[in-house]
């Protein structure tokens, strides 16, 4: 079976010469939920932007469900890869929630009843149907994050990439988002340094540091490895017992 996302030896340097990625390789199978863990500046966001062709690798290649990321089919790549960015205010810019959710599928050429069905289904998936007509800035931060997820779900992506989904959320919004994410029938790559959230949502994790993948395994095992965490500037929150992880 073709993997949902295949990254092979991807290296990338920014125009100013700063090298952000040094030969990153991994594959994510369909239906998997994988966490991408790493400290600030590890190259996580740079890697994410390679996946939908916003940035093009200097070496190596990225393949999304069998289709390589290349300029000639960027439109299809951007349908297949849905990215939910960290700040919902960056993602939501249309006057109403419904129009914002419709923006992606409309760019794919959908119109009329078909478009409406997509918008309704995506808003229903995140429990925001009753807010369809409201302007995004009247919503709470947690609600805006959920709408941001819906804007991407409406494009029916093959893989959903969440960039720091739990940042700035209160505990209740955090749990609600977790419930939504676990209820989705889609491959997920979750970029985060919120280790308990990764453990809760993703059976598998990749650890990234200094522009390279430094570990790949089950989340519980990786988080129980104190040396590995320390070497990659990752830390469990105070009071979190790594021994309890092994028992899971």
């Amino acid at each position, binding site marked *: 079976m073709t993997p949902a996302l295949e990254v092979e030896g991807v290296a990338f340097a920014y125009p100013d010469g700063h090298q952000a990625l040094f030969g990153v390789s991994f594959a994510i199978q369909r239906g998997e939920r994988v966490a991408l863990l790493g400290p600030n500046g590890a190259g996580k966001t740079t890697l994410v932007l390679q996946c*939908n062709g916003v940035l093009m690798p200097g070496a190596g290649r990225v393949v999304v469900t069998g289709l390589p990321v290349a300029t000639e089919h960027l439109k299809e790549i*951007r349908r297949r890869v*849905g990215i939910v960015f960290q700040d919902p205010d960056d993602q939501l*810019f249309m006057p109403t929630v419904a*129009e914002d959710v419709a923006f992606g599928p409309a760019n794919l050429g959908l119109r009329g009843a078909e478009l409406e069905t997509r918008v309704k289904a995506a808003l229903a998936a995140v429990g925001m149907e009753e807010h369809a007509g409201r302007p995004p800035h009247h919503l709470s931060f947690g609600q805006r994050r959920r709408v941001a997820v819906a804007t991407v779900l409406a494009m029916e992506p093959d893989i959903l990439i969440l960039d720091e989904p739990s940042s700035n959320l209160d505990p209740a919004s955090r749990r609600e988002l977790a419930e939504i994410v676990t209820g989705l029938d889609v491959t997920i790559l979750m970029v985060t340094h919120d280790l308990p959230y990764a453990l809760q949502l993703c059976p598998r994790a990749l650890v990234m540091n200094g522009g390279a993948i430094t570990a790949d395994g089950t989340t519980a095992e990786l988080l129980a490895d104190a040396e590995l965490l320390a070497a990659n500037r990752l830390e469990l929150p105070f009071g979190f017992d790594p021994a309890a992880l092994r028992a899971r």
Partner: protein
Amino acid sequence: MGAGHAHPLYLPGTSPLHRARPQCKIAASLLFVLAVVATPREAFWAFGLYAVALAGVATVGRVPLTLLARRLVIELPFLLFAVFLPFVGQGERVEVLGVPMAVGGLWGAWNIVAKGTLGVAASAIVAATTPVAELLRGLERLRLPKLLVTIAGFMVRYADVIADEVRRMRIARISRGHDPRWIWQARAVAASAGTLFIRSYERGERVYLAMVSRGYAGAMPVLEDLGATRAQWLAALCLPAMAALVAATAWGVRP
């Protein structure tokens, strides 16, 4: 976080005026204002008719006249200028309550007050019965360049976000003991403005990135056809047609 009210002028409702197509309302108010401006200032009766017609439209739109009166306050700075005209005007003078005033200046002041008030009232009615999002779509239907409408839309969307950032930066400044009272203390404020500019610029880049990631290729998709029927246009053009007739009559009966 920025959960302010984006439509402070909008009065939610379901009146026929609320349901009218935004492009019809915008075009009708613009034409109405043109007719009012073209009316000779000596025709007091014409301005009375205009005011009565506007009050009628406001009633149809369930916009309370007291509210409309309060919103007219926005034109006060312009009226202040008009108040000076009779005093500084040259030429023939008359005594009003013992104060000598220029006749030309009085006419000029009346002209500004009457026409300005009617214009502001007309746009206040449109603003009270049309949400901002619909106004933007109406402008698009009226063939205003799409780029301008898109920019206006972004401005409306991000005004709150940026105002919120300004507020947070100010609180952070005064929390560190900043208490600007004199002009030479403005340095920190200026530095904040610079930071805000950079931040907004960077946000613009991130918004663009998020748009591109959802398939944006340079043109905003047209989501629904908000075309107006001939009947809707006819209904909307009743007011400006009546105003044009009044203006023409006023010129006709002019001594």
